[in-house]
């Protein structure tokens, strides 16, 4: 019976561990989610995306706290749109009225987009645009039919038809381009969960302390329970347990 329980507990813990290990990562390209990729992604995002898209929940100053960027670096590389304020959230230069006039609807706020759709979805979306002259913008997307956004990354990544034929090659080699898209996704993943690096950094110490306490508590429990087990073995009757209990109380 005892073995069954230990087995069940071990099974639960292993499956829990596997669940934890299976993070929301990308299969292609091979990709690491760490501070350098997020910083690279932040710069690419500022260059290509933040003119239209807000990440309003994330203040620029958090990039210094979470990623270790310097204020000067953030001002130079990330706060490209005019009028951005270091202590405020990332707001676009395009006004909602402009967006309405140009694309028919405002560009979505991307603060929580990776939490809401997943990193894989965002990556696939960004790499699934194809040229469709029928659409007002000239662009459509395999995973987001009738998308309003044009493929602004086409000059770097290339223009494709619906069947995947190359209409015009991009200036970047495919591997480098895919890596850059992955970096942007990494930045958005960080933006929707900015505590991630802090959590990871202190999590092991918290768990380690608790495991240590559990080990100590286990030996304490074993010591206390010795007389219960002794009593079982000798099958002695009487109030051993009571005496011990009264003493400790």
């Amino acid at each position: 019976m005892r073995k069954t329980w230990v087995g069940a507990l071990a099974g639960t813990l292993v499956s829990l561990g596997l669940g934890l290990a299976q993070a929301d990562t990308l299969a292609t390209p091979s990709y690491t989610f760490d501070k350098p990729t997020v910083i690279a992604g932040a710069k690419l995002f500022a260059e290509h995306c933040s003119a239209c898209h807000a990440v309003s929940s994330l203040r620029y100053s958090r990039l210094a706290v979470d990623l270790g960027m310097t204020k000067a670096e953030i001002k130079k590389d990330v706060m490209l749109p005019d009028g951005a304020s270091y202590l405020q959230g990332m707001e676009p230069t395009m006004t909602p009225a402009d967006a309405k006039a140009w694309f028919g609807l405002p560009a979505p706020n991307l603060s929580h987009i990776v939490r809401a759709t997943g990193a894989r979805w965002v990556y696939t979306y960004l790499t699934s645009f194809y040229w469709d002259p029928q659409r007002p913008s000239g662009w459509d997307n395999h995973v987001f039919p009738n998308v309003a956004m044009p493929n602004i990354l086409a000059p770097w990544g290339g223009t494709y038809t619906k069947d995947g034929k190359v209409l015009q090659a991009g200036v970047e080699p495919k591997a480098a381009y895919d890596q850059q898209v992955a970096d942007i996704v990494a930045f958005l993943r960080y933006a929707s969960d900015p505590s991630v690096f802090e959590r990871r950094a202190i999590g092991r110490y918290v768990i380690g302390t608790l495991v240590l306490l559990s080990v100590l508590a286990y030996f304490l429990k074993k010591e206390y329970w010795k007389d219960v087990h002794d009593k079982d073995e000798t099958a002695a009757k009487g109030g051993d347990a009571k005496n011990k209990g009264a003493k400790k109380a």
Partner: protein
Amino acid sequence: MSKFGDWLNERFPAREMMREHLTEYYAPKNFNILYYTGSLLLLMIVLQFISGFLLMAHYVPTSKDAFDSVQGIMYDTKWGWLIRYMHVDGVSLIFILLYLHMGRGLLYGSYRKPRELLWIIGYVIYIMMMGEAFFGYILPFGNLSYWAGQVITSIIHAVPFIGPGLTTLVRGGAGVGTATLERFLALHAVLWFMIIAALIVLHILALHQVGSNNPDGIEIKKLKGADGIPLDGIPFHPYYTVKDVFGVGVFLAIFAAIIFYAPTMHGVFLERTTFFRANPMVSLPDVTPPWYLAPYYAMLRAVPNKYEGIILMAVAIVLPFFLPWLDRNPVRSSRYRPVYKTMIIVMAITFFTLAWVGEQPPLPKYFLIERLGAAIYIGFYVLLPIISSIEPTKKVPERVRS
């Protein structure tokens, strides 16, 4: 005892309570891992109270600002993410513990005479917890909160005669909005929480009146030593307090692993659609409840008619109240009842299958699973009185096995 101790005890029965509930409360010595769940639930309620208090200090219950105030906790408040993840993941862990705690009651016949009232109070706590979780679920006002609020409050519409008026009263208006958030916050943080806390006190008092059951289902009070202490009983303190400290350590390590490394548990503990702002103009393709309420939702959907579905769901929730009287076998524990044990295993598998299918989109291919699951769930309670009176049992030993 110290002078202060004497002074205190003349005015307050501290020593007496300590004896009655800890040092001279005799618990069976053969508790297994499932018996950690009670103390862990108590711990989790305290943690939810602390984290909830801190969250409420930053939360704004208006439809305009609720979502942003919660994101403010996540992005701009020092340790805000830790507090919120504790509170959100804590709910799922409480329900895991509750299901283990209740499953233990089923396995070892802990609901049987003289523990009927103990079981009923516990089951009321579980139902209250579902309400508490639902109110809390609406507060962050993501799009899922909004639509779940609309859908669940619309169930009240089915109440005869007063349904429509009651729905408006619960929502505080025609739809879910600021008035709903304000009253749900009041319910979540004050009324419901206080009722749950009071019921927990009653649950523990009722437990200490009848004494704990154990995996063998043997009444330890039947065999007492010359000193009047059950032969298989040991004082709760220090034996089980020290054992529970170990359980708390292991449990908190698992809790920390979730909070620090998988706080959304891949969308199971914190759903993806809660990260979109509430928007009455954008309906969700399918509004599914959190995993711990999904079995009932699956049964609700198993019947195509709304009223019949609600009745089925209500019956499913009410049936466990009658468990103490539906089980007619003289033996308590499933250890000595192979047929009953099989029934419980089938029931557990059914319950978690229903939880899984309740999370799936409402597609025809799942109807069969939903209906089969609902039939097995109801069938368990219908068949229990018959099977329990004819099933074969093994010989129950005199003393507990350690």
